[in-house]
């Protein structure tokens, strides 16, 4: 039970006021506002096992933030059930607060006028973390995130990368089982991004934290997530591995192989089609919905044939996701 996230049939409807155009319209809206319902998320079900890192993907406005807000206890769902580490977040907000840590992209929870280290101390006392434990964890985080080089600087003077690293540390200092990260690396340079990813991997693999991550950075997803949940227009489109997404939305890889013997008979393999043949040069591609991933296909081809060279053309994840968003959008 500890550290799991369960989402069952989650829906959330917002009521907003429509503004009429023009000054006269604005005046009318002032007196007689027109309300409409907007379904931010509809009937979403998924779960995350303890110690798993799940990437929640979807285009802007898909309902990712709404989902995270419900899971952190900030938002009450219209219907459905949610449990985070066994606690219903919006019913027992404070109990849930002790189990979770959260970073919302560029929004900092640090105290603007104080050095980052002071913020850590305030949070330590708010979360009632014993001093020795806090010091040990801070040391660990410092080794991974290099915090000590800037933690005596006031937050207002930190660079974005430094601030987000401090925010990550701040969110994890109370040893939460579950961590929510809403676009944590947005706007950071590659070096800092890599440092943050390394940190997250460490937190999942070594500390067994459950992480729910939203991001638009596909490299990040590839490096970190074993499993992804894709939502669009508030509905769940896919829950599975990255490979599954590739298979469903991005079946565009090609393997070009040079056969050692130009006279070998090349034939299609299960799920792999022979696309072209030109002497020793053969090109394979995926075949049907059961096609293997490019890695398995490569393995199968090398096992079956003696080759002197291979090259892989693969649609990168960005292309796959573009395809996925477009298709899912059309379906919804």
């Amino acid at each position, binding site marked *: 039970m500890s550290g799991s996230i369960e989402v069952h049939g989650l829906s959330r409807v917002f009521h907003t006021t429509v503004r009429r155009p023009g000054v006269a319209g604005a005046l009318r809206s002032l007196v007689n506002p027109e309300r409409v319902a907007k379904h931010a998320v509809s009937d979403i079900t998924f779960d995350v096992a303890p110690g798993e890192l799940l990437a929640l993907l979807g285009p802007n406005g898909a309902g990712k933030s709404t989902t995270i*807000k419900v899971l952190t206890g*900030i938002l009450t769902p219209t219907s459905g059930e949610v449990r985070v580490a066994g606690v219903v977040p919006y019913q027992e907000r*404070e109990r849930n607060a002790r189990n979770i840590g959260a970073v919302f992209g560029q929004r900092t929870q640090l105290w603007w*006028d104080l050095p980052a280290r002071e913020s850590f101390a305030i949070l330590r006392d*708010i979360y009632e973390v014993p001093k020795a434990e806090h010091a040990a964890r801070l040391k660990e985080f410092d080794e991974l995130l290099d915090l000590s080089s800037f933690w005596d600087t006031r937050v207002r003077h930190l660079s974005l990368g430094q601030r987000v690293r401090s925010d990550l540390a701040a969110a994890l200092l109370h040893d939460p089982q579950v961590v929510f990260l809403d676009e944590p690396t947005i706007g950071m340079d590659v070096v800092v991004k890599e440092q943050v990813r390394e940190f997250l991997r460490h937190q999942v693999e070594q500390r067994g934290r459950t992480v729910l991550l939203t991001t638009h950075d596909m490299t990040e997803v590839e490096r970190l997530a074993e499993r992804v949940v894709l939502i669009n227009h508030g509905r769940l489109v896919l829950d599975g591995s990255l490979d599954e997404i590739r298979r469903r939305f991005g079946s565009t890889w090609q393997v070009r192989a040079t056969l050692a013997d130009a006279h070998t008979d090349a034939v299609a393999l299960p799920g792999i089609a022979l696309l072209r043949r030109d002497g020793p040069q053969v090109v394979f591609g995926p075949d049907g919905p059961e096609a293997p991933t490019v890695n398995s296909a490569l393995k199968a081809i090398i096992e079956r044939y003696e080759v002197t060279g291979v090259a892989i053309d693969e649609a990168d994840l960005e292309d796959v996701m573009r395809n996925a968003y477009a298709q899912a959008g059309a379906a919804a």
Partner: protein
Amino acid sequence: MAALSAWRVARVTPLGELNAPPRMTGVALRLLVQVVLVASLWHGLYSHTGTTAGLGESQAVTYAVLAVLASRLRELDQFAGRDTVIQHMHFGTIVYWYLRPLPPQRYYALRALGEQVYGFAWALGGYLICLAAGVVEPPGSAAVTGVFLLSLLLGQWVLHYIMLATDQWCFWALRNNSAILIIIFAQNLLSGVYAPLWFFPDWFVTMSSFLPFQATLNVPLSIYIGRIPLSDAAGQLAVQAGWVVVLALFTRFLWRRAALRVVSQGG
């Protein structure tokens, strides 16, 4: 443990100020200039007049200078610290208040307390200097001092709730610039910062007696200068205490509604 977190949260403001020496120099300079200006203004106004509205020259000057000092108790550059409700609403960071095991209302109260104590140190320092320089008169007796301090405490308590309610307003309005300006003005005018309330026409004094503002400063300062005799002080203290209770209940209610609003709108 709870005491520790209280201490940490309460010292955020003093620590932030100590980390910004230019800001502290600014406060000192501003306090000095304001006291000099206010004292000379009231001396000037009284130069052709004896006692008016029951206030003599030294009483009026003492009242006005103490009002300047007292208005510094909570007037810090909160905006610079980016920890006001309006900024948290604006930057979307209010969510963090609701993500911690410390209830937002307690966090807010602790921050306010820290500010109050820090501001009190300034006001007290300024007071002692003014007293030594003969700008203000000392209180009439030990009993007056005691009642004044009690009344000042109650007054600051009322002021805290007024400021809290102004901040809570942001949960609904998303912006409170105008509300803040109006409250600051009303607070200054109706509590006697601009001019002792005794100078105002009767209808104005009657109206303000139904509002909480006069309980914040006018009552304690009038006790200090002896315009409210000790024999009448009990009733005034009761009014102050009454405002504390009423506003405590009201702001509690607003906190509950604010939480509902955050929970239904998502901050």
